[in-house]
């Protein structure tokens, strides 16, 4: 009986205007957005390779003298684009892809392309199409599933048969949902096919497993909205009310809530800006330099002699004296800066966590969070990149920065030197290990969507049981 009802639903829906329009939108937008984003990915990849090559050349030709004469010496590290970004590219420079690793801290580097990273509109990607268009049409297909039948009088005809209300609900759910799944599946497969033809090897790496997860969650996400429409339809008796309520739900859940979350997080837990933190770091650095320089100058006068030509030359005890004086200052500066940096990072992370938690209340928020992580363009990826850059900085500290000595004297002298063996050509390159699928899997988001689904289903069954079918 369930299947009969489902079949009727499918037949009705397949011939309807909304199905045709949805099919059109899906088949036009999904493959074309996948293809366009693939082209963008290729160009980003080419840029990345060029930049890495020129970076490598730079390191190879780097002379020691260039390093220790520059107190602000730093290396650039880049986050390579992932092929799965074809699903969720969004803005091209959505996350900082370029970090600058210096002696005491890791800072944001300049964006790779000023023009395209600052535009009025985002771009269309798969995530966008499913998140907005499919959810809207899911609601549009289901909002009158019950009320339409009630208004036509066919609801009581159906229920005058030995058909349980639960069976009716299941039949409608199944039928409506299958109508949905078809355009999505077809458009998706066409898109993947186009990608394969254009040169992306879908069988390489973990592309296929990630794609599978993305598709699966898309089905779950749409099911949630379909169910919510169905729920609203079983709560009210007029199609018109069902429409307004369903659209209001869609508006709030998809358009408003996720964005409002970032607003709320900023209000609740404001963080002092990066600019201010940076200025604080700079001021700590320069004040320590001055202190250190002053003391060193006095000590130099005591530990040096004037030679025949009237120039001051350091005596044997100088180096030890210098180290004695300089070490605590450098240590203190490094610690203060690390503390400022950690402070900022912790607060920022707390604000981020709050915003994410709020945004993921909405099924759209949870969906976006899951897909961006699975597509390797998510927030977790950015943290991973920053953490790896930190590790690289620590390695550079050990291998390079700790062996460089740079002192500024208040009267205007500068002393620089290298202690120990440093070979710039042998400095290890920055390598960002690829994250595994299981690391990108956000179980919490799946759970949130499942909860929405189950609660909506339960409420629908209850509402239908009490529905006045006359």
């Amino acid at each position, binding site marked *: 009986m369930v299947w009969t009802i489902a079949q009727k639903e499918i037949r009705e829906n397949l011939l309807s205007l909304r199905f045709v329009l949805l099919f059109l939108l899906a088949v036009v937008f999904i493959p074309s957005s996948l293809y366009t984003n693939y082209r963008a990915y290729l160009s980003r990849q080419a840029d990345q390779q060029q930049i890495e090559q020129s970076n490598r050349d730079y390191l190879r030709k780097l002379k020691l003298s260039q390093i220790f004469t520059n107190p602000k010496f730093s290396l650039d590290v880049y986050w390579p684009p992932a092929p799965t970004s074809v699903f969720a590219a969004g803005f091209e420079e959505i*996350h900082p892809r370029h970090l600058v690793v210096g002696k005491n801290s890791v800072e944001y580097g*300049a*964006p790779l392309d000023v023009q395209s990273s600052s535009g009025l509109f*985002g771009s*269309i990607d798969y995530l966008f199409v499913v998140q907005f268009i499919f959810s809207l*049409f899911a609601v549009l297909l289901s909002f009158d599933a019950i009320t339409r039948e009630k208004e036509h009088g066919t609801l009581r005809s159906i229920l005058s048969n030995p058909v349980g209300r639960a069976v009716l609900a299941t039949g409608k759910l199944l039928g409506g949902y299958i109508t949905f799944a078809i355009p999505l599946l077809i458009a998706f497969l066409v898109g993947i096919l186009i990608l394969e033809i254009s040169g992306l090897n879908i069988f390489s790496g973990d592309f296929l497993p990630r794609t599978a997860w993305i598709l699966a969650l898309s089905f779950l996400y749409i099911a949630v909205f379909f169910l919510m429409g169905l729920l609203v339809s079983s709560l009210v008796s007029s199609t018109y009310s069902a429409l*307004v309520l369903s659209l209001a739900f869609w*508006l709030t859940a998809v358009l408003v809530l996720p964005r409002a979350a970032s607003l709320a997080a900023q209000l609740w837990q404001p963080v002092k800006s990066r600019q201010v933190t940076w200025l604080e770091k700079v001021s700590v650095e320069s004040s320590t330099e001055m202190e250190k320089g002053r003391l060193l100058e006095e000590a130099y006068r005591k530990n040096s002699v004037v030679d025949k030509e009237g120039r001051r030359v350091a005596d044997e005890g100088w180096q030890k004296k210098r180290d004695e004086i300089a070490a605590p200052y450098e240590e203190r500066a490094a610690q203060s800066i690390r503390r400022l940096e950690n402070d900022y990072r912790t607060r920022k992370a707390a604000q981020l966590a709050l915003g*994410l938690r709020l945004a993921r209340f909405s099924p759209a928020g949870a969906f976006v969070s899951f897909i961006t992580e699975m597509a390797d363009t998510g927030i977790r990826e950015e943290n991973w990149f920053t953490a790896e850059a930190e590790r690289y900085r620590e390695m550079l500290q050990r291998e390079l920065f700790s062996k460089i000595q740079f002192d500024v004297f208040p009267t205007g002298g500068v002393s620089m030197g290298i202690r120990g063996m440093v070979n710039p050509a042998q400095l290890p390159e920055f390598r960002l290990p690829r994250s595994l699928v299981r690391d990108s899997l956000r179980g919490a988001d799946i759970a949130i969507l499942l909860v929405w689904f189950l609660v909506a289903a339960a409420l629908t069954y209850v509402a239908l049981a009490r529905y006045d079918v006359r």
Partner: protein
Amino acid sequence: MIVGGMMLLTLLKKEIQDYLISIRFVVLLALCILLIPLSLYVNFETYKRWSADYNEQVKSETIKGSRGRGGLSGLRPPSALSVFANGVETSLAKDFSIQSPRIIFGTGRSYGDPIYETFGRIDFLFVVQAVLSLIAFLFAFDAISGEKELGTLKLAMANPVPRYKILLAKFAGGMIVLIAPFVVSFAIGSTILVFAGYPLFQGIILAKVALILLLATIYIGLFFVLGLFVSTLTHQSKTALIMLMFVWVVLVLGVPRLSMMAAKVLRPVDDDSVVALRIKLLTESIDKEKGNALKQLYFDKAREKKLSPGLLTFDSADPEFVRKRNEIAGPFEARMREELARINADQQRKRQAQLNLARNIARISPASLLSYLMTDIADTGEHIKVRFLDAVRLHYSALDRLIFSKSYQDTISDGNTGWGFGGNLPGQETPKDPPRFSFSFPRTAESLGQSVVDEGLLLACAVALFAAASVAFIRYDVR
């Protein structure tokens, strides 16, 4: 006449009453009251932070300036009207620094704010463009077809009322009900802003805010009329609704994003980083050629001064040496400047063409039109981007003329050994206080003048749609 006028008023009252007791009005009211004041307030808090950051940066710049190092970097001030429409304010570089011959742009103001970048932001522009347009459709979709279904349409027409008056009453009634909550929420939001310290009454800001409000009203009206029009095309409200939802998706979600994507595909432009690489390679190769040409001169000088083998020097005390050096190096440096200027001009031209194409394609949709218009007024639009980048390049040219061209940088190589020389050319004066970068917002007349076409388009669209709706309604079968 009097009867006709009273009839119109009666119809108007009926329309308004119908809307006021409906759920959709409640939804509209709730969304307006919640979203508009909140988004205005939070955006203002963000703007205050940006302003504070900007002032901090200005202080550092002043310190740099007092040490004679000003001018080599510059800042872009935030626009106060970004509170209403973020536009490119959050993503456009907020500063730059010059390391001749490169200009290095900084990051945008919201760089590294992952929540905002993943989920997007709410500003007044978004509320109007996306939320209120959808609700306008919601109000309009069953204006005609719904009445037909209920049977009340033929009853209304049985009275001596011309059809256009009925349509007019529907339009006026719907507009009043749509606009009232919107304007009230806007007023509440603005009051909160003023209490929080927003300079609403400073200079031209009040006028611009009024203009923004006017544009929003026209935009909502346009969508409402569009909804009415579609409602007159079909006899079933549901069909009208589905068509309108489809239209909404295409106009609000689709066209604005597609316009830029299409422009990028139709008129592709190399990334800035690619161009920078090209410039670097060019610079290196010309430098090498120059070095080879200068080699003999430097070697001769070293021999003349009886320097130890492996040492060269730039003898600034010898005017003949300096003259010969300038003579040899001159053409190379001139060529480098020309090439650089050419590459940059080329890039700029291509970018502008791409942007123009995108804007033209985007004119298909009132939603993207609104974005362009509102961001133009708020000084956060694409034109600000162009203006800033142009100003930076102009500043660089000025510095080049005054400073960079008066210094020399020679790289000589002989087999495995290399020498580098750089400094100020003797006899050439460089200003003690290099010119500072300053960025000013365009005058109102200028920024409005650019968008006159778009404003006209928006208005024309609304009027045309109303005409179309009238025609369609006149032919409507009301039975």
